């Protein structure tokens, strides 16, 4: 069991032991990088095909099923198509910035994976301020989107870029605020320590953050903000095809377009991996009886589950209007995350020997978060018309 759990760690050390001492540290870094790129590159390919198939099923059609068995080789075909397409740069474009934008988007996102623990002893670097690092490298994506939109010298591109930046800035606030309770109650910004803090089992069930009132609310707030942050439907206004062609991607083609596509999915993966780490106990098994499973297996099962939820949401929820989008962040998510912060504080201090029963703690927390949810939810649409059943008499 332990061997299977640590198989990748052992494999890495075995490889390193075959090498002369001088280059070991360098090769160790390179191996980590190769592992991350290989795993999440494969994830990217698999997710694109599964997303298209899943969306197809939701929309009552088959989805891609021509290339390879069940259409599973479709990503290969897509990649070949992307690579062989002509790379068109608009005549009036700012050539240098136009060239740099996809790189500025894609490169920092790879960095974000380096702090995430994918399994026991399986994080590339153990940074003391890991969560901060994650959000810091994410900051470059706004700049990249602006570069792409502005350098294309196209109205639609610029409008798309401005929308994307407004959206990213608005949703970064609730995204960070939703993680703060976790940081407060784990007492660390280090992702490994946050996973460690969720390691116990009560009655055979894991003590993840999502099983506390603040964690439960925080998890959903985080997921909503993450959806918007990675520009996914229903928050995909920056590329709303029906209004502004493809937003900041309008003037991109061929491999650069593929890089943007890759960057978008990598951003989604990174933020999903972070949500698994922060709220779903990282690589811990959900039940004590399942502890024999390898830690990396548990992590990727949770990871895949959340990605599936994202695909499901994309197929189900219609796109928001832009004012609705911004109001939703500033008038709903941000106040709720602030209330959630208070809930976390109450939860923390009621555990300190006040002798309160567990269910009473839950009740107090619910009494704080539920009215806030109802109130802010109602306030979002102040003059909401009463529903009129016009054709259902």
């Amino acid at each position: 069991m332990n061997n299977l759990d640590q198989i990748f760690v052992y494999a890495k050390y075995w490889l390193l032991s075959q090498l002369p001492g001088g280059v070991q540290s360098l090769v160790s870094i390179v191996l980590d990088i190769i592992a991350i790129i290989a795993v999440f590159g494969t994830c990217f390919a698999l997710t694109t095909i599964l997303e298209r198939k899943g969306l197809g099923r939701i929309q009552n059609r088959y989805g891609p099923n021509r290339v390879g068995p069940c259409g599973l080789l479709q990503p290969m075909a897509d990649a070949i198509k992307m690579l062989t397409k002509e790379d068109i740069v608009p005549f009036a474009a700012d050539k240098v910035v136009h060239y740099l934008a996809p790189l500025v988007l894609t490169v920092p996102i790879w960095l974000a994976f380096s702090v995430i623990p994918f399994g026991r002893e399986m994080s590339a670097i153990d940074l003391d301020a890991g969560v901060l690092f994650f959000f810091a490298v994410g900051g470059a994506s706004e700049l990249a989107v602006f570069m792409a939109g502005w350098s294309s010298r196209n109205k639609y591109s610029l409008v798309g870029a401005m929308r994307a930046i407004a959206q990213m800035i608005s949703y970064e606030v609730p995204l960070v605020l939703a993680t703060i309770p976790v940081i407060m109650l784990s007492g660390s910004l280090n992702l490994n320590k946050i996973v460690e803090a969720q390691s116990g089992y009560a009655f055979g069930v894991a003590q993840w953050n999502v099983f506390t009132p603040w964690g439960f609310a925080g998890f959903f707030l985080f997921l909503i903000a993450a959806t918007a942050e990675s520009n996914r439907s229903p928050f995909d206004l920056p590329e709303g095809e029906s209004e502004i062609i493809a937003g900041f991607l309008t003037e991109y083609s061929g491999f650069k377009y593929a890089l943007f596509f890759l960057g978008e999915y990598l951003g989604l993966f990174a933020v999903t991996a972070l949500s698994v780490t922060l709220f779903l106990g990282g690589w811990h098994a959900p039940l004590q009886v399942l502890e024999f499973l390898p830690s990396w297996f548990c992590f990727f099962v949770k990871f895949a589950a959340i990605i599936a939820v994202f695909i499901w949401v994309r197929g189900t929820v219609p796109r928001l209007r832009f004012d609705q989008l911004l109001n939703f962040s500033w008038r709903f998510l941000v106040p709720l995350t602030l209330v959630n912060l208070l809930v976390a504080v109450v939860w923390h201090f009621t555990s300190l020997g006040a002798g309160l029963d567990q269910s009473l703690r839950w009740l107090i927390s619910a009494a704080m978060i539920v009215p806030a949810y109802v109130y802010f939810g109602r306030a979002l649409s102040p003059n909401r018309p009463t529903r009129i059943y016009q054709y259902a008499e």
Partner: protein
Amino acid sequence: MPNNISFYIFAVGVLATATAAMRLRNPVHCALAAAAAFAGLAVIYFQLDAEFISFAQLLIYVGAISILVIFAVLLTRGSDIQPGVELASPHWLTGLAIAVLVAFVIAVPVCSSSFGEKIAPKMTVAPVKLIGEELMTRYLFPLETMGLLLTVALIGAAVIALREPEESEIRNPKSEIRKQPTTEELVAEVQP
């Protein structure tokens, strides 16, 4: 020595991008170059074992201030560069001379001091926990003041940049605001 080499690479990078930010014609290019310079500085902070500050620098300077600068450039139409307009102010030569003088005045004491031989003491990265504890104890008052300052700056910036109402709107405010249609009207519109 790899630490040393990477320091020189990033130092040259920071200086080059900073110079570009001050020299380029298009203000948007200036802002992008400035963002690159800030990111390079974050790497140098990281080498100096100031992990927390390095990430804060990335988050605030690259993620927020650069974007703010870009928005300001676009909102003031600074990126429309007319060919006739001079880039530098009329007294730029005097200004440049003063800048060189300032650099010289600071560089002389740096050269003549004994800092050159000074080697950093061995230390571990300052733990985030320690920073947090210091912030909550010794630096509590500055921290609270900073919170107040940021709030004031936020509200102030919003108020200053708020679009002022046109004069006609001030005289009769009702005329400009379109009446929201009521539910009945909307329904009446839909119904055949």
